[in-house]
């Protein structure tokens, strides 16, 4: 087993275990904080794949942004301590069916896709190429996404704005 394989399995273990905690934990706040390990593990995968820019983005956006927002949301929820998060197993059978279906679908896609293994080379600097792709070939979708985000931002600001009459 090579060193990178060891790292891969360690990362997999971290991601899976913390994801299990996210799903199974009864305390909402513990779930939220377990996401930290999940996100970091995924960032580790990116590093392993040589996509250092993506790894940094993963960290900045997910850990620095989304996770903090999530934790904020949880903390600001009224009487969060009283909440009982016991998952009831009422829909176990349909749930199992759905899970199995999704798994089969994903497995089919994974096995049937003609992965280009071994061909091509690892890009030495991903950052520059990502930049060129965003501002060149994919400029339109990139700009569309940014306008969408801007609209969401303005809308959020409008909603939380202090009303004059209140």
């Amino acid at each position, binding site marked *: 087993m090579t*060193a990178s394989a060891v790292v891969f399995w360690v990362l997999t273990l971290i991601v899976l275990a913390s994801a299990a905690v996210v799903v199974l934990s009864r305390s909402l*706040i*513990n779930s939220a*904080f377990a996401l*930290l390990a999940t996100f970091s593990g995924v960032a580790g995968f990116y590093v392993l794949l040589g996509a*250092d*820019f993506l790894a*940094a*983005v993963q*960290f*900045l956006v997910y*850990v*620095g*942004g989304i*996770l*903090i927002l999530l*934790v*904020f949301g949880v*903390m600001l929820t009224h009487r969060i301590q009283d909440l009982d998060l016991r998952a009831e197993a009422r829909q176990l059978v349909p749930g199992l069916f759905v899970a199995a279906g999704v798994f089969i679908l994903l497995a089919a896609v994974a096995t049937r896709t003609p992965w280009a293994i071994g061909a091509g080379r690892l890009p030495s*600097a*991903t*950052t520059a190429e990502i930049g060129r792709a965003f501002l060149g070939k994919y400029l339109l979708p990139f700009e569309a996404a940014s306008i969408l985000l801007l609209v969401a931002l303005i809308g959020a600001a409008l909603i939380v704005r202090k009303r004059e009459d209140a």
Partner: protein
Amino acid sequence: MDALLRLFSLIPGWDQNVPAWASISLAGLLAAGLCLGFISLGPVGYVYVERKLAGFMQDRLGPMRVGPWGLLQTIADTIKLLFKEAIFPAAVNRPLFVVAPCLVVIGAFMGFAVLPFSPTWQGTDLDVGAFYVIAIGSLSTVGLIMAGWASNNKYALFGAMRSAAQIVSYEIPAVMSLIVVVMIAGSLSLQQIVAAQAGGLHNWFLWKFFPLNVIAFLVFFTATLAECNRTPFDIPEAESELVAGFHTEYSGFFFAMFFLAEYTEMFVASAMVSVLFLGGFAAPLPVLQTVAGFDIGPVWLIAKAWALVFVHMWLRWTLPRLRVDQLMHVAWKVLLPIALFLIVVIGGLLTAPATAGGFPWDPWFGWPLTALLCGYLMLTALRAWRWHARQVREAVA
């Protein structure tokens, strides 16, 4: 790490007998150990200096009892902190309570991985070095929130909320003004950013596009000040309002870890500022880069970082603290527009061929202004020292 690997290869027979992954791991561990020593011993010095500085500014002596001139005071304090009982209040969320300070320290410590102390003395030269430092900072934020929540204390929670809001807000102007530097250097790699500033003080990014980059520097420095929770942005631990903010309930070693993280973050942030704007390990004069054939880049970087740390301390003992809404006002309505403006203007200037390498007057401002500034600071220091000496003389007489 590269330097360490090269050292290993000097050992006869090393390359043949030791597998590559082992020597890389060993080099990584050694480098990490070096940084760990630096960060754990650094605060001992900083705290002493900070206390003495505070004493000087406040017209008193500072620590004087333990050791000559109180030199051993912080060591004694460290020992005390290490041996003190770590108290866990009854209703804390114990796992999170323990993990939180570790996360904060890790977040501060990981910044060292990319700090370039010299062309070879660097953990690793990431392509996205500058970006990495910003990204890793969010780990500390999560740690702070965790600490505030786990403490089960309203003041701690307030501190955590404040610090999260503050760090997230100030990251934006910091990144924006960082982009200015990245655009000029054309790279995110810290090595290349430093390389672009080599060749003397007038090449530093601080003096590029003369008045513009100075503004970018001020924006970035202010934002780092806020991200380190230092006065006037120390509202997360504002001791007069929130008792001690997020570390209200911590004691002993866990408290020491927060302390350690704060001072480490201060150093990392200052080092980043000096890498981005003050030429990093590049000496102000190329002649001073080597002494007797040895590259003294690390000395320059550390000296510049410490000078900025000194400014942090200076501000702390001079200014009152802002209120939370004023703090947000500064971030969103002052720093962010300035940073955006700078990005647009400098981006435009860089695309124009006439100003792609900076304004024509750039080389003429760096030296005189630096000399003026240094002269003024020295004069002030001299006056302060003479005044202090007179006070002491009068007290004795």
